[in-house]
């Protein structure tokens, strides 16, 4: 290895000191060396891109395996693999046990907690490092977790800043933190996500689908991703969209909707009336569970309806706590979205 190559490697590793930096600059006075540096940098970037492609292919295979095996109780692991994983797990467990006694490994091993599950219904699953974990209310959601819902199933989770996301039926979502900005990052592989995002003051929230990237500063939207197309209905706020190549950009305003594909976005069109049309429901409050953010109402015709309250609006709702008791008559107005996040509670009357 030549001295120049060593200096280049130190440069890439950010381990240059003042002396080696000066040497590298001197070496780069030579046009031949500059050419070599460019070739090396292109070579490295190509390597990174190739490994990223490989990883993408691998993760697609993994995700399709997870989706295929969802909810039918089949196992794709061979017994040999299970034994080898059990061996690894046993060694890890012993190591963890021995060092956790001194109390410093716990925090190091787990990725950062990002959010907390606030409501689950039906078949909901959480995959962490290819392992399936149980998910229930107050389960912690960490960087890199994959959330999967089955038919007629919902999973609601909440960030520390009050932003709430509801994953709809037959959906797969990866929850991440953008390493460079520390901002929220969600990757909707398929299905439906409804979110109510609090104003993001530190850094934008990023949302990716296989077809597009969205940058969110604080808004309310419904995003569906199926069959290589994403449909975005923006109820409030403003979102910056870009396609996967990053070359097409568009800003969508509240009350507008667009369809996204790898190549382009459709012209914005007014949101489907069904989504913004206010619906009302009158009934008797049966049940109130603040932690779950859920209200169950029974109408005069004895029909019941459950409403999910966006958790960041729950405090607001609790301010009216005295007016909210089972048996009360409620008159609720809500947007007719698929998941019925309550917008306003117009009237509440206590029975005498």
């Amino acid at each position, binding site marked *: *290895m030549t001295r120049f*190559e*060593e200096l280049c*490697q130190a*440069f*890439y*590793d*950010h*381990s*240059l*000191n*003042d002396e080696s*930096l000066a040497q*590298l*600059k001197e070496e*780069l006075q030579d*046009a031949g060396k*500059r*050419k070599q*540096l*460019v*070739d*090396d*940098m*292109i*070579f*490295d*970037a*190509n*390597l*990174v*891109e*190739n*490994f*990223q*492609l*490989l*990883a993408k292919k691998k993760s697609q295979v993994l995700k399709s395996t997870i989706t295929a095996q969802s909810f039918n109780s089949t196992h794709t692991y061979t017994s040999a693999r299970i034994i080898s994983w059990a061996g690894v797990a046993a060694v890890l467990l012993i190591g963890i046990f021995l060092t956790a006694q001194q109390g410093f490994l716990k925090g190091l091993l787990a990725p950062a907690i990002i959010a907390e599950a606030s409501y689950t219904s039906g078949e909901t699953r959480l995959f962490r490092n290819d392992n399936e974990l149980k998910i229930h209310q107050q389960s912690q959601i960490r960087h890199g977790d994959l959330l999967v819902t089955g038919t007629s199933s919902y999973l609601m989770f909440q960030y520390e800043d009050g932003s709430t996301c509801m994953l709809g039926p037959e959906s797969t979502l990866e929850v991440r933190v*953008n*390493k*460079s*900005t520390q901002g929220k990052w969600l990757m909707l592989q398929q299905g439906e996500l409804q979110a109510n995002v609090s104003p993001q003051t530190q850094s934008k929230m990023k949302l990716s689908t296989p077809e597009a990237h969205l940058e969110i500063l604080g808004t309310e939207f419904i995003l569906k991703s199926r069959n290589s197309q994403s449909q975005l209905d923006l109820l409030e706020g403003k979102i910056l969209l*870009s396609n996967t*190549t*990053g*070359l097409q*950009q568009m800003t969508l305003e509240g009350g507008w909707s667009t369809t996204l594909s790898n190549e382009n976005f459709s012209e914005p069109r007014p949101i489907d009336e069904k989504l913004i049309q206010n619906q009302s429901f009158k009934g008797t409050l049966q049940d109130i569970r603040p932690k779950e953010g859920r209200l169950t109402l029974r109408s005069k015709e004895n029909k019941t309806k459950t409403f999910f309250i966006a958790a960041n609006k729950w405090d607001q709702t609790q301010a009216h706590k005295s007016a909210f008791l089972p048996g009360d008559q409620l008159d609720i107005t809500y947007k007719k979205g698929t998941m019925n996040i309550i917008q306003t509670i117009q009237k509440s009357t206590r029975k005498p």
Partner: protein
Amino acid sequence: MNEEKIALASSRFLKDRHALMAFIYGLTHDAASSEDILQEVWLKLFHALTEKEMTIDNQAAWCRGTAKNLILHYWRSKRDPKVVIDSELIDLVDQAFTESEPESDLVTQRQHAMQKCLEMLPEQSRQLLHYRYYQGLSFKQMAQKLGKTTSSLMMSTSRLRKSLQNCIASRLQLHQEGAQ
């Protein structure tokens, strides 16, 4: 907005994308941040063409200049005292790219050839490159992980790079001969 101008700029940007990415990645060595910076450069280019209605003669150089400022900002925001990055060195790298003006088509061909060559590598060698170029580990970190010395890992990586370069060169030659 001149749509023809935007379309031309887009296609130019797409062509130069690999070289620009190499410039950014080379100076940050962080794949995720490099992607972010690349997107930011495009946004700034789009803004300059549409809202400021600028005329840009050498788009590749303009993009590198913009990327240069974003990279300096990236390092400043990191506040890592261990990292020595100075604008003089970035200028020298920029000069190197200006002089070479890597041919976009060739960069793409090399990319495809590399894909095939990587598949032919033994698993252990591929894993080594994976640590270095996908996980972005430094040689020091790799040495700790693999229980080897930094210098032996530098040597192995250097050999691997050379054999990959040879493989790519012979594939490109075969491709050219096939085309003729």
